[in-house]
């Protein structure tokens, strides 16, 4: 029989599909049907409508009878994406800030999740408790969690400045919620909220790594880093591939964290695309423009995803 200790290449079924066909020709489609139906209703059709809205002149004047709103073609896109114009310039700036923010946040969250997962694979006393503690930020309602960080970041009364001044690490009390530090403050909050989820997924993925593989590697004289590189990471590939991608997408689109942290108006150093779109369109009831900006954002993310999948799939066996 086939052994299980080989690397996780996608194994072709040993019996060709054609031989299966007479018995259950429709099964995959049946299995997919509920998912497809729900996705159409809740995601796809509203999305298409949203894209359609981006081609309309849709402000508070038209919203009541939105299906009759005048067709604006690409005007909304021209207004928002003209990088020489004021609106476009600010959008571009927020875009770069968001790219940097997302890359750092996902990178750090994944690293923290990976190391915590790996270190807690070994049965320790109190492991269950520690794993639960690490997952707690994920359990907290986002509003309360982020507001707590604003308390921590307060210049005069916050815990962070108290720590910094009492340990002598800083002479002056810096601002964290305005000015240049605001980007780093936001990043810390984002990592604090995201890394437990990375930890959860890595933890699940690690359970599938047979311990024989670690033992075999140890016999070969592999130390911690070699084991990580040659056993853990390859076995985690399917999990990591999805995890990193979705973390990137979610963090890029994250609205709640910066909105609650900065009270709806972010300093320019931490002006994220999601807040920017909200502020420059939805607050002003200009849904046509807001939809156009969102579609532009969507196209960018599609490009990133396509590139990411190409790169990560290249090493995999073709399906």
């Amino acid at each position, binding site marked *: 029989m086939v052994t299980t200790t080989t690397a996780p290449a996608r194994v072709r079924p040993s019996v060709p599909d054609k031989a299966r066909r007479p018995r259950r020709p429709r099964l995959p489609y049946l299995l997919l049907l509920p998912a497809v139906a729900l996705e159409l209703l809740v995601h796809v059709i509203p999305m298409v409508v949203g894209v359609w809205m981006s081609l309309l002149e849709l402000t508070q004047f038209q919203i009541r009878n939105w299906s009759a709103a005048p067709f604006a073609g690409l005007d909304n896109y021209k207004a928002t994406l003209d990088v020489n114009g004021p609106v476009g310039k600010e959008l571009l700036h927020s875009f770069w800030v968001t790219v940097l923010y997302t890359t750092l946040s996902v990178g750090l969250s994944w690293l923290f999740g990976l190391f915590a997962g790996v270190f807690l694979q070994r049965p320790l006393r109190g492991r269950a408790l520690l794993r639960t503690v690490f997952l707690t930020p994920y359990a907290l309602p986002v509003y309360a969690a982020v507001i707590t960080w604003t308390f921590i970041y307060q*210049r005069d009364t916050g815990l962070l400045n108290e720590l910094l001044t009492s340990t002598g690490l800083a002479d002056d009390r810096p601002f964290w919620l305005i000015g240049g530090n605001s980007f780093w403050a936001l990043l810390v909050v984002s990592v604090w909220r995201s890394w437990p989820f990375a930890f959860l997924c890595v933890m699940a993925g690690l359970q599938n790594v047979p311990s024989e593989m670690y033992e075999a590697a140890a016999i070969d004289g592999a130390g911690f880093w070699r084991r990580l590189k040659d056993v853990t990471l390859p076995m985690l590939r399917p999990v990591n591939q999805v995890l990193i991608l979705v973390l990137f997408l979610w963090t890029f689109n994250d609205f709640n964290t910066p909105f609650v942290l900065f009270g709806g108006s972010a300093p320019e150093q931490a002006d994220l695309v999601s807040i920017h779109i909200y502020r420059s369109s939805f607050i002003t009831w200009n849904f046509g423009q807001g939809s156009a900006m969102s579609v532009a954002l969507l196209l960018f993310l599609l490009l990133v995803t396509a590139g990411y999948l190409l790169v990560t799939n290249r090493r995999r066996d073709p399906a």
Partner: protein
Amino acid sequence: MLAASITACGDDSDGGSGGGAKTLTYWASNQGASIDFDKQTLQPELDKFEQQTGIKVNVEVVPWSDLLNRLLAAATSGKGPDVVNIGNTWSASLQATGAFIPFDDATIGAVGGKDRFVPAALAAAGAPGQPPTAVPLYSLAYALYYNKKMFADAGVTAPPTTWEELITVGKKLTKGQQWGLAVEGANPSENAHHAFAFGQQWGGEWFDGSGKPTFDTPQNVAAVKRYIDFMAVDKIVNPSNAEYAQNQSVSDFANGKAAMLLWQAAGNAFKAQGMAADAYGVAPVPFPGTAPAGGKKVNSMVAGINIAVFKHTKEKDAALQFVKFMTSDAEQVQLNKTYGSLPSVTTVAGDAAFQAEEQKVLAGVLATSAAPLPQVAEESKFETLVGTAMKELFADAASGKPVTEQAIKEKLGNAQQQMGS
């Protein structure tokens, strides 16, 4: 099993007219200490209304964080309440949707007539030249709150009436951990409200007659500079205030860390934070000592809540009856007394409920020196853009960068460009 659980937890909240007795759905805004408090305040009044007219009113108290979203959804879908409270600064934007019944002469006559309402409050219910989209319900204005003990200790006998006096007093009271004035520097709405009032005093307008933004005029720059300079030049405001966006300035005043505060009807907020009513005094917001050219005698925006009726209502007459009830003398006294706001009708100003020091000051301001924010459809964009520009200026001031007129002009100019076409 799934179907059963779905039907079991389906909810129906929409009150339409059932056969027979009429029903209205009313979305009230949160005006009191809690949603529950508001429900308990309103329910007896709604019962009274039902007794008088036989019309049942189903009320839902909607938190401010959700109200605008849900109004938008209701306006878009044609499905929602019959009567609703709206923040009065939303009036022009909501008017532009066309989703609300305009209070033309006939309609406003049905609820008591135009002259019933405080003129400034009614002016804040829609764009000029068009019938208002709502009628005022509760009115508020800004006032200067000051700590009586700190004033007494420093030998200040009367609250300042000019900005120059305020600076002098503020400097006397800024020592140690204590500051003269508290400011909510990171809250764009608060900043924009002050930008408006100061702008009026310096003769500036934020929009011209045709509704185009005019942000970076010299008058507006001077007005904004006067406000930012409290922190940047006069140093009577704690630099930390540059990041205040969660009512920390109110807390600072209540905790004795600041001697003065410019705020709307803060009495109940102070009470909840443990500050006794006799610990603070209330005075009208100051004016410049010598009025700049074109300056107006305005020291506050007209703040308040309006009540509007959706066009999609199936019970228009019942809804108007309800509006008339809520703006009737008895209800105006009862509700405003409970909420700490001022009546939006002129007939009950003399009621005993509104003779406390704070109420009298606010009523005086509303009657004589309050003006509505620009009633243009882009009003919320103005608040966001100008308010955020001021937040950035405060941030610069807090980090020690000089805030020059040029810098202010640039920021306001940038904000104006962001207003788009």
